[in-house]
């Protein structure tokens, strides 16, 4: 039995390495837009409470799962944007200008926190998808993301190579 488990672990590792190679090839570093207003609407718990009160249980569960699927896409996009910002912030952090380096460090810190929040949000949303009666508000993400936008914009203003369009894009 133990032999089978260990062999399975080794096989899983090989699959994981293969996936890592494939996803590395696909990595583009593209920033894709996120409509925070729509995202906030999706995350609005009052809205959910309203629907819960108005709709029959089965219909509410169906609708909630649909909302979760869309929300997960948003969270995945926010996470991808945060890692793209992380990659770009690397170079700016080494800038000889102290104000640029400091702004980049703040952006990196925020982007890291957002990645962490995204992971937590994904976990909570997955649990809510499995049990729609749960309500595990992952509400910190939208304000943090807004803050990241502002910081990236500030960093763009400080750098000679203006990154303001990037801030509006994310």
């Amino acid at each position, binding site marked *: 039995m*133990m032999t089978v488990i260990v062999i399975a672990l*080794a096989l899983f590792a090989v699959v994981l390495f293969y996936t890592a190679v494939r996803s*590395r090839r696909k990595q583009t*570093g593209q920033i894709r*837009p996120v*409509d925070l207003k729509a995202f906030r609407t999706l995350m609005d718990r009052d809205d959910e409470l309203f629907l819960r009160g108005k709709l029959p249980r089965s219909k509410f569960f169906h609708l909630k799962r649909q909302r979760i699927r869309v929300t997960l896409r948003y969270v995945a996009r926010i996470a991808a944007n*945060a890692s*793209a910002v992380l990659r770009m912030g690397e170079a700016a952090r080494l800038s000889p200008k102290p104000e640029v380096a400091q702004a980049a460090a703040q952006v990196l810190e925020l982007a890291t926190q957002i990645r962490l929040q995204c992971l937590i949000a994904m976990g909570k949303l997955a649990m809510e998808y499995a049990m729609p009666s749960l309500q595990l508000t992952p509400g910190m993400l939208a304000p943090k993301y807004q803050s990241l936008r502002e910081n990236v914009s500030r960093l763009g203003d400080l750098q000679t190579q203006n990154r303001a369009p990037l801030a509006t894009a994310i």
Partner: protein
Amino acid sequence: MPLKAYMTNLWFLALALQSLLALVLLAKRAWNKFPVFLGYSVFNLCAAAALYMVHGSRVTYFYTYWTCEAIGLILGFGVVYEIFGTILVPYPALRRVATVVCRTAIILLLVLGAIVIGAQSSGERNQIMASILVAEEATRIVELGLLMFLFLFSSAFGLHWRQSAFGITLGLGLFTAVELAAVTLRNHLGTAATQTFGVVRILAFNTSLVVWLGYLLAPERVTSNADVPKTAQLEQWNQAVMELISR
């Protein structure tokens, strides 16, 4: 071709590839970026040469082989630690989270290793050999688990790997995975699997050497700057989402 001759050829190929890897690492001044990996590579080259020299004497070969294996394992852990530090350098904000998650992973892997040592039955008649094989199996589980942790953690946080660091981890991971499977089967099947174990091991190591050389010699990929989407695209996306919401 008989298995023994095939093994010898693979051994010479490994020696040639290891010499090339050492040269590439020295040419790239790897002692600045990856000193432990450089040490690991040079040690493996010396170990392979030493094992070839003593392969006539069964007892000397046995002790040399397992001593080199133990040192190689320790250096392997050193390489994992080195890569862990390298990928986290640009992300100081992640260090605390990474350290906590890594410690948890190490504890879980040590528990798994201990379970393997306690529960694994051996098909090997020689008790010393059986103990060595189980110990190696447990240690390889910890090593492979840490390498998997590196990939999972960096993928969860979308961390960017430098080409060389990615290649080193991938090569080591592949070798460790095959080595773990081989040592487990060798332990389970007994001495009947010794020769097959040897061939699989050297094939896996040669593959890792090719991976290391490939990633070290290939030019570093330039990360493209962000593509700023057009306003029309943004509007389309918003409209689609709003439709989904109001459906």
